[in-house]
């Protein structure tokens, strides 16, 4: 697994167009409210917003590394936030926001809790 510095540098290179996006880095963040009100024909290709809040139509969505399902990312998402794949239930961690990069979240360990 890449270190945070390596990931940050990779993210920066990708944002600057110096490197092809990671296969899981689908670039844009779905806005919850727009998902809810999206026309039926756009249901799988949602109106999306970048981390800066700009909106665009895209067919590039964050993909679950386990089931290839589309992962919906909240508009206020943060790096290192946990999200779940609605299709297979896998817990994922957002490693990079722009473009979106997802990894499997760490397995729950015995000492995890409150």
């Amino acid at each position, binding site marked *: 697994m890449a270190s*945070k510095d390596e990931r940050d540098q990779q993210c920066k290179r990708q944002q600057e167009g110096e490197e092809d996006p990671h296969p899981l880095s689908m670039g844009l963040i779905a806005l919850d409210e727009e998902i809810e009100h999206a026309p039926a024909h756009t249901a799988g290709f949602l109106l999306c917003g970048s981390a800066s809040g700009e909106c665009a139509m895209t067919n590039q969505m964050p993909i679950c590394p386990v089931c290839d399902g589309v992962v919906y990312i909240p508009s*206020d998402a*943060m*790096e*290192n*936030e*946990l999200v779940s794949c609605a299709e297979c239930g896998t817990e994922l*961690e957002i490693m990079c926001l722009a473009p979106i990069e997802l990894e499997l*979240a*760490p397995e729950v*360990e*015995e*000492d*995890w*809790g*409150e």
Partner: protein
Amino acid sequence: MRIALLVTHIRAEEKLILAAFNKRDISPDIILDRELNFDITCGAQQLAPSGIAWREYDLVFERCVSTSRGMYALAILNSWGLRAFNTYETAATCSDKLRTSIAFMKRGIPQPHTRVAFTPESAMQAIEDVKYPAVLKPVTGSWGRLLARVHNRDSAEAILEHRQTLGDYNHHTYYVQEYVDKPGRDIRAFVVGNRTIAAIYRESNHWITNTARGGLATNCPVTDELDDICARAADAVGGGILAVDLLEDARGNFVVNEINHTMEFRNSSQPTGVDIAQEVIDFVIGQIGVVA
């Protein structure tokens, strides 16, 4: 004001906490516990993963889901004189059910009848001393993991053999409690400083009522009696920002089951109408400048 938020990753609670800080025009530095690399002897002048020297932080707010990482980070930071919530002493007590029971005993906090043994044979005797059904718990752990309600000698023998054979040494400390026949619910109370700011009932058809296990949260009125026992229990473990879990026994009296030092509250603000994150953060901010 410079604050570090120490996390394993960002959960709903951490987002609420960050939003509460932002309402007070504070943007904490988020520090991931996976990136910590302390030089124990170098002290607080060394750089945190944020690139800022630890000593520059007015406060470190520990919110790690990893109990060991959070607790040992607090041990180091507190040893350097940094202010942190909760303190290492509070975290170390709350993360260990046996140490929590001792703290309650010393302050006369009512708790379920509890016995401790270190071999399967003596644990069997402990179970029969508290009488069936008994509850076996790991001394460390959360979210209702590996709790066992034991109804008879056969099941006790099976569980003890599994613990002894499959568990590491942590599972060879047998923490045995009487089963409290609660009314289909327990109480989770949120204590900030010396005040109980809110409480919920956690209702479930299952004997384990954790919301992490599907327990339903509804508002529980904070009576003077509840506030008193919660504040005393929180003080017994060192105080701070704590979630106190209580049971109601057959006579309606409270017994304190355990205290959590990195509380989860995502399901509790809505039913109680209390902005728990904001209460916590305002308390934390208010402590800066108070004598460490």
